[in-house]
C-alpha cells in the first residue's frame, strides 16, 4: 500500500506544431482516486497524460502533487508510473531486466551498472540484491514470476501487458498513468483485465489516471470520468452523473455509443402537443413549449406501439430494419415527419412484429430525455440540461 497523493492541474496549456494541443485544463484528482480521461482519438487525452509525466513540454499552467509543483522535474524524477498502449517493453531485454530497468537506472550509478565494477563494489552489490528482491515480489504479485527470463517477443499480449504494469508498479509511484493499456487486448481478455486492474489499484491505493476512448470501459471502472474534446474538458463527473446528465450533445453522443436519437424539438412539439390534462409537458425540467434545439434520448428509453393500439401520442415512424442482439434487438426506424433516423431497443422476440416498412408510434421516457441547443449551435456554451465544467 503506497501513501496516496492528490493531483492538481491548473490552467494547463500545451501548444505544438505537430501534437494535439491542450487549451487550459483545470481539474483535481483526490488521493487514491481512479479517474478516467475519456474522449475520441485526437482529443488530447494522451498529450495530457504525457504532459503530467513530463514527456512533452507544457506551455503554461502548473501540475502539483500534494501541493508541490513538479513542472521543473525530469520525467524520471516525478515519481509517476506510465503504462503505454504498446507496452513499450525494451525488446532486447528479458522481462527481469525490463522490470528492473527503472530501479537500475535510478538507484545504481553508471559504475554500479557495469558488469565488472557492479560486482566489485559492495554498495552496488547490496543495491542489486534489493532490486532482485523487489523484482521477484512484483512479479509474484502480478503472477509473471514464471516469465522473468523470457524476452517480450516470446510473450502473449496479456503477459506483456502485465510486465508493463509491473515495470510501472515497481517504482512505487505517487501517480499511476495508464494510456489505453487495454486497447491491444482481445475482447474477452480486456474485460477480465480491466476488473483485475481496478482490483489491483484498490489494493495498492495509488492515485490513477486512465486514458481510454471506450466509454463502456470508463463507465465500468472509474470513480470519476473527465470527458475531453478538442483539447478541452467538457465535463467531469461520476459515471452516473455523466449518464444521467451529459453536459452537451457531444458528450451525450459519445457516452451513448453506438446510438443516440436526436430529434428536432419542433417535431416533438408537433407530435406530442404542449400540454396534457395533467399540465405542461416538461423535458429536462423545462416546458416543451419553451424548448428550442434538439431532444435526445437513448434507444433503451424508447418503446414502440402499434398504430391500431390506443395509446398516448408519440412520434410516427416507419420501420427500416432490425438488428438482433441476443435477448434484445435494435429496431432502426425513420420519423415519418422528416426522415430522421432513430433506434429503439425492443425485445428480440418482438422483431417479427416489426417488418420493414411497417409504421408505428415511438414513445420515449421524458425523464430520461435531454435537451440541447441545435446541432450547429456553439457547443462551448453550457447545455440546457446538466452542468458543464470547462
Amino acid at each position, binding site marked *: 500500500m503506497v501513501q496516496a497523493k492528490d493531483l492538481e492541474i491548473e490552467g494547463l496549456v500545451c501548444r505544438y506544431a505537430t501534437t494535439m494541443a491542450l487549451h487550459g485544463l483545470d481539474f483535481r484528482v483526490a488521493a487514491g482516486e481512479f479517474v478516467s480521461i475519456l474522449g475520441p482519438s485526437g482529443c488530447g487525452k494522451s498529450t495530457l497524460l504525457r504532459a503530467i509525466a513530463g*514527456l512533452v*513540454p*507544457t506551455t503554461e499552467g502548473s501540475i502539483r502533487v500534494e501541493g508541490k509543483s513538479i513542472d521543473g*522535474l*525530469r520525467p524520471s524524477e516525478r515519481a509517476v508510473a506510465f503504462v503505454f498502449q504498446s507496452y513499450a517493453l525494451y525488446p532486447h531485454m528479458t522481462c527481469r531486466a525490463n522490470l528492473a530497468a527503472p530501479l537500475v537506472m535510478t538507484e545504481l550509478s553508471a559504475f554500479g551498472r557495469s558488469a565488472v565494477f557492479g560486482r566489485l563494489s559492495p554498495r552496488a552489490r547490496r543495491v542489486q540484491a534489493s532490486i532482485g528482491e523487489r523484482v521477484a515480489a512484483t512479479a509474484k504479485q502480478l503472477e509473471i514470476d514464471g516469465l522473468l527470463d523470457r524476452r517480450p517477443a516470446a510473450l502473449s499480449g496479456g503477459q506483456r501487458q502485465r510486465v508493463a504494469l509491473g515495470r510501472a508498479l515497481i517504482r512505487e509511484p505517487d501517480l499511476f498513468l495508464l494510456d489505453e493499456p487495454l486497447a491491444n487486448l482481445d475482447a474477452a481478455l480486456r474485460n477480465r483485465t480491466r476488473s483485475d486492474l481496478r482490483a489491483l489499484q484498490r489494493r495498492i491505493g495509488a492515485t490513477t489516471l486512465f486514458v481510454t476512448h471506450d466509454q463502456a470501459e470508463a463507465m465500468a471502472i472509474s470513480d470519476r470520468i473527465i470527458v475531453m474534446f478538442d483539447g478541452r474538458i467538457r465535463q467531469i463527473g461520476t459515471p452516473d452523473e455523466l449518464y444521467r446528465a451529459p453536459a452537451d450533445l457531444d458528450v451525450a453522443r459519445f457516452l451513448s455509443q453506438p446510438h443516440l436519437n436526436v430529434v428536432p424539438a419542433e417535431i416533438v412539439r408537433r407530435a406530442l402537443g404542449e400540454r396534457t390534462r395533467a399540465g405542461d409537458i416538461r423535458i429536462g425540467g423545462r416546458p416543451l413549449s419553451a424548448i428550442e434545439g434538439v431532444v435526445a434520448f437513448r434507444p433503451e428509453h424508447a418503446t414502440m406501439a402499434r398504430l391500431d393500439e390506443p395509446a398516448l401520442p408519440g412520434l410516427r415512424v416507419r420501420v427500416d430494419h432490425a438488428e438482433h442482439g441476443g435477448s434484445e434487438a435494435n429496431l432502426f426506424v425513420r420519423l415519418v415527419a422528416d426522415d430522421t433516423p432513430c433506434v429503439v431497443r425492443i425485445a428480440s422476440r418482438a422483431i417479427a412484429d416489426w417488418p420493414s416498412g411497417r409504421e408505428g408510434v415511438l414513445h420515449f421516457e421524458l425523464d430520461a430525455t435531454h435537451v440541447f441547443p441545435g446541432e450547429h449551435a456553439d457547443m462551448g456554451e453550457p447545455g440546457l440540461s446538466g452542468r458543464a465544467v470547462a
Partner: protein
Amino acid sequence: MNATERQRRRVGTALALPAGTLLAVLLLLPSIGVLSFSLTDYQFGMPGFDWVGLANYAKLFTDPDIRRSLFNTLLYVVMVAPLSIFAALALAILIEGEGRLGSVFQTIYFLPITATLVAMATAWEVALHPTFGMVNAALSAFGFAKVRFLSDPDTALATLAVIGVWKILGYNTLLFLAGLATIDRDLYEAAAIDGADGGWGRFTLVTWPQLAPVTLFVTVITLIRCFSEFETVAVLTNGGPSGATDMILFTLYQQAFRYFDIGVASALAVAFLLFVALLSIVQVSLFERGGAA
C-alpha cells in the same frame, strides 16, 4: 522547453555534429569546388589559372574525343539498361514460381553482386580470348568462326555491354524479388475470381501494376550504374581499340589524373553530376514516398 527537452537537443547536436562536419568538408565543399574549377583553365602543377567562363563546357560538345566518349556512354546505356531490367523482371517471376528450387537459382544469380569486378572482368577476358577462351572454344566446336571480342572496334563496346548486363542482372533480380514478396497474395486470388487466372492475365492485372514503383526504382539505379561504368573499360580496353569503348567516367579519370587538365575534367564531372542528380531526384522522391516517416 523543459530540462529533458534541452538535454535531447544537446545530445542531438553532439551526435549529428561529426557527420554534418564531415559531409560538408569531404563531399559538399569539394563538389562546390569542382563547380568553380570547371570555369577555369587550372592544370595540376601549374602556378596559376585564368577564369575561362564556359569554355570547358563548350569543349564537351566540340572535342571529338569527348563527344565520342559521351556517345559511347549513351550507346552502352541503351544496350545494357533495357535488357538488364526486363530480363531481371522475367527471371524474378520465373524464380518465384519455382519454390524451393528457386532459391538455388537465386543464389547463383546473386553471385556477381559480391564478386570483385576487376577479377571477374579479367576472367571474362580469358573466357573471351580468341585462342584459348572458353567462349571461342565453344563457338568453334559448334562450327562458328572465332571472334576477337575485345580487340575488334565493332564488337568491343557490345562485349563490355554483355559483361555489364552480367554484372547487374542479379542485383536487379534481387530487387524485383523483394518487390514481388511485398505483393499481397489476396490480390492474386481476387484476380483469379475476376477471371485472370492465366499467367499473362495475372501479370497485367496484378504483378506489373504492383511492381511499378519497384520498376522505377530499378530503372533509376540501373541507369546510374550504367552511366558510371568504369572498371571494365579501365581494366580490359583502356578506352580502345581506337576509342571505341571510351566512356564518360574513364575520360574524366584520364583528363583529371593522367593529363591533369582539371578545368575540363571538372566540367565533365559537373555534367556527370547532372545526369546522376536528375536520376537521383527521382529515386529520392520515390524513397520518401514509400519508406520515410
